[in-house]
C-alpha cells in the first residue's frame, strides 16, 4: 500500500499571485486542496483608528491608500458620507467631475484586474497591453488631480480642482480609443481556448451563496443578481446616465471575467455621457464651512466601487474629527467565501479563483 500524507503549504505572504501580502494556509493532498485558511492583516495600518484623530479633510489622503487601485471611489465614499450627514449640496460640475474621475478609475481598476488575472493564469502579454491603456487613464487623472495613484482629489463639498484646459477633450478622445483596444483584448484573450478552459466552471457559486456570503460587485452580479448601487441606490448624478447593469448567470470565474469586461464598456458609456452633459459654469466647490464638521449622529452610506460595495460609517459627535469611522471594504467581505470555494480544487484553480475575486490587500486589511 502506498501511504499518502497531507501537506501544509503556505501560499504567501510573499507569493506572485496573492497580489500583495496575503497568506493562504492550505492543506493539500497531492495538488488537491483539502482545506484553505486565509490569513490577513499583514497590511493593516489602522486607518480607522488614525482617522479618529484627524479632520475629515485629512482623512481623504488616507482613503487613497486603502483601495489603491481605485482611490477615487474611496475618496468619494468618505466625502459622500460627510456630505450626506451635513446635507451639503454640490454644484453639478463637481458631481460630474467626480463621476468622470470615478469611472475612469473604474476602467483603470478593471484593466489592472484583467492584466494581473491573465498574468496569474500564465499569459504575460495582456498585462502589458492593459497597462498601456491604464497608463493613459492614470495620466489623465494625474493631470486632473496631480497624482498618479493617491489622488486626494475630492473634498467635502466638491473637488480640489476644476478640470484643466482641454482635459475633457482628452477624455472624450479616450473613449473610442479604449473601445478599439477592448476589441483587441477580446481577440487576444476572450476567445482563447486555453483561457476558456482555465476559467469556465471554476469557482462556481450560486446566487444564494453569493448573497449569503455578502459578496458584492462583479462577484455578486456574475450569479445573476442585478444589483448595482449606481443604478439602484443612485448617488451623485448617476441617475442621469443611461447604462446597463451587467449580469451573468454562471457564477464562475468566466462569468466574473465577462462581467468586468462588460463593465468597462458601461463605464465608457457613462464617461461619454458625462463629458457631454457636464455644465460649463466652472463651479466645482459647493458652499461648505471652512472647518468641516459632520453633525452629531451617525450615517452609513455605500457606493459601488470597482470591487463591490464600499461603505462608510461615520459616528460623529459634531466635532471636526469623526468619533468613529468605519469603512465597509468590499475586498474584505468578498474574500470570505474563499475557503469554501477552494475546497477540492487544485493549485492552478486556487490562483484562478483568488484572482477572480479581485482583491486589493490594502483594502482587505484596512
Amino acid at each position, binding site marked *: 500500500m502506498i501511504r499518502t500524507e497531507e501537506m501544509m503549504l503556505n501560499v504567501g505572504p510573499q507569493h506572485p499571485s496573492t497580489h500583495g501580502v496575503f497568506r493562504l494556509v492550505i492543506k493539500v493532498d497531492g495538488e488537491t486542496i483539502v482545506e484553505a485558511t486565509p490569513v490577513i492583516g499583514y497590511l493593516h495600518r489602522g486607518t480607522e*483608528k488614525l482617522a479618529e484623530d484627524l479632520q475629515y479633510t485629512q482623512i481623504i489622503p488616507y482613503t487613497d491608500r486603502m483601495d489603491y487601485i481605485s482611490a477615487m471611489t474611496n475618496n468619494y465614499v468618505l466625502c459622500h458620507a460627510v456630505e450626506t450627514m451635513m446635507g451639503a449640496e454640490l454644484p453639478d460640475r463637481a458631481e460630474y467631475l467626480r463621476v468622470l474621475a470615478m469611472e475612469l478609475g473604474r476602467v483603470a481598476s478593471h484593466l489592472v484586474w484583467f492584466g494581473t488575472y491573465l498574468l496569474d493564469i500564465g499569459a504575460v502579454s495582456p498585462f502589458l497591453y492593459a497597462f498601456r491603456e491604464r497608463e493613459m487613464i492614470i495620466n489623465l487623472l494625474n493631470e486632473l488631480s496631480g497624482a498618479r495613484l493617491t489622488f486626494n482629489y475630492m473634498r467635502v463639498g466638491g473637488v480640489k480642482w476644476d478640470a484643466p484646459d482641454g482635459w475633457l477633450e482628452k477624455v472624450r478622445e479616450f473613449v473610442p480609443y479604449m473601445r478599439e483596444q477592448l476589441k483587441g483584448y477580446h481577440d487576444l484573450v476572450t476567445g482563447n481556448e486555453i483561457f476558456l478552459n482555465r476559467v469556465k466552471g471554476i469557482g462556481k457559486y450560486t446566487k444564494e451563496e453569493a448573497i449569503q456570503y455578502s459578496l458584492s460587485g462583479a462577484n455578486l452580479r456574475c450569479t445573476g443578481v442585478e444589483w448595482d448601487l449606481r443604478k439602484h441606490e443612485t448617488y451623485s448624478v448617476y441617475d442621469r446616465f443611461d447604462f446597463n447593469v451587467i449580469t451573468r448567470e454562471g457564477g464562475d470565474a468566466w462569468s466574473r471575467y465577462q462581467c468586468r469586461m462588460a463593465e468597462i464598456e458601461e463605464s465608457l458609456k457613462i464617461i461619454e455621457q458625462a463629458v457631454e452633459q457636464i455644465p460649463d459654469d466652472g463651479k466645482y466647490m459647493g458652499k461648505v464651512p471652512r472647518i468641516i464638521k459632520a*453633525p452629531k449622529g451617525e450615517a452609513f452610506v455605500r457606493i459601488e466601487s470597482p470591487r463591490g460595495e464600499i461603505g462608510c460609517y461615520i459616528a460623529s459627535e459634531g466635532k471636526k474629527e469623526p468619533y468613529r469611522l468605519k469603512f465597509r471594504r468590499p475586498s474584505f467581505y468578498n474574500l470570505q467565501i474563499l475557503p469554501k470555494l477552494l475546497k477540492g480544487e487544485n493549485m492552478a484553480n486556487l490562483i484562478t479563483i483568488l484572482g477572480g475575486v479581485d482583491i486589493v490587500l490594502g483594502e482587505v486589511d484596512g
Partner: protein
Amino acid sequence: MSDDKELEKKKAAEEARSKAEELKREKAEQEPPEEKVKNSKIAPDKEEDPSDEKESDKELAKKKAAAAAKAKAAALAKKKAKEQKETESGKKEDTDEESSKKKPVKEAAEADRKQKEQEAEPKDADTEEDKEKKKAAAAAKAKAAAKRKKEAAEGADGEDEKAKAVAAAKAKAAAARAKKKAADKGEEEEEKPSPNQPLLDKYVKVLKDHLGEDIFEDFYINRLSKHVPTLVAKRDTYHRIAEFLRFNDQLGFDYLSELHGTDFESHMEVYVHLFSFKNLQSLALKVKIDRDNPEIDSVVDLWQGANWPECEAYDLLGIRFRNHPDLKRILLGEDWVGHPMRKDYEPYDVEV
C-alpha cells in the same frame, strides 16, 4: 429639467417636513425640559452666532401664532422650517454643554422623538405630510409648482425677502437654496421624510406581532443616513430579531451589507446594515452591549458574510460573539495586546 423636478420635490418635502417639525416642536415645548433637551439634540446642528438665535427665538413666537392661524400655508411653513432649524440648533448648542457630559445617545433621543411622533402626533399631521409628499413624489410638476409658488407669494407677505425670492424665480430659489444649504445642514435629509416611515412602522409591527412587545430598545428613522429605518434591539432579543428579519418571507433581509462595532465609552454598539434583495430595502439593526463585558450572539448562522466582520469587531474592540464558528484576531494576530479601537486603548510595546 431633472434639476427642476428635484427642486420641486425637495421643496414640497421641505414643506411637509416643516409642518411636522412645527407640530413636534409645539409638543416638545409642552413637555418636561429633559424631553426638550433630547428633542433639540436630534436636530441637525450647525454653527450659528448667538445673535441669530435671539432673532429666531423672537420669530419663533411669531411663527407659532402664524402656524395656528394658517396651518396650511405651505410657503410659510417652509420658511418656518428653516428658522425652526436655526432655533433648534441654537437651543441645541445651549443644551449640548449640559448634556454632553451625560453623553445621551443621540439615537436614543431621536428614537424617543420618533416614537412620540408616531404615537402622540395628531393624525392630521400625518395626512398633511402624506398629501404634501404625494404631491412631490408624483411630481405633478406644473400644477403643484404653480400652486406652491402662489402660496409662497401669499405667505411671503410680511415675511422676509428670501421667501419672496423663492416664490419669484425658480432659478433664484435654487441659488438661494444652494446657499442656504451650505449653512443649513440637514435639509437634504428632509427631502423624503416619509418614504421610510411606513416601512419602519411595518417592520416594528411585524416584529412585535411575532416576537412580543418588549423587544426593542428603540426604533427610529436615521435621517442623517439616507433615512434608513433603524432598530435598536435588546441584548437578548438581538439574535431573535435578526433571525426573524433574515427568514421572514415578507421582510427577507438576506444580505448583510455591513457589521461593525463602536465603542461609545458608555457602552459598546454593534451596527448591522441589512439589505433585502426581495424588497430592495435597507435596514439598520443595532444592539447596545455592556462595555465591561462585551458579549453578544453571533449572526454568522444567519449570514455567512458576518464571519470576518465579527472577527474584526472582536479583534479591534474585544466584542465576543457567542456561537461564532471561528472567532479569531483576524487583523492583528493572536499575540496582540489590547483592542485598538477602544477609546481607552494604550499601545503596548514589549520593547519599551
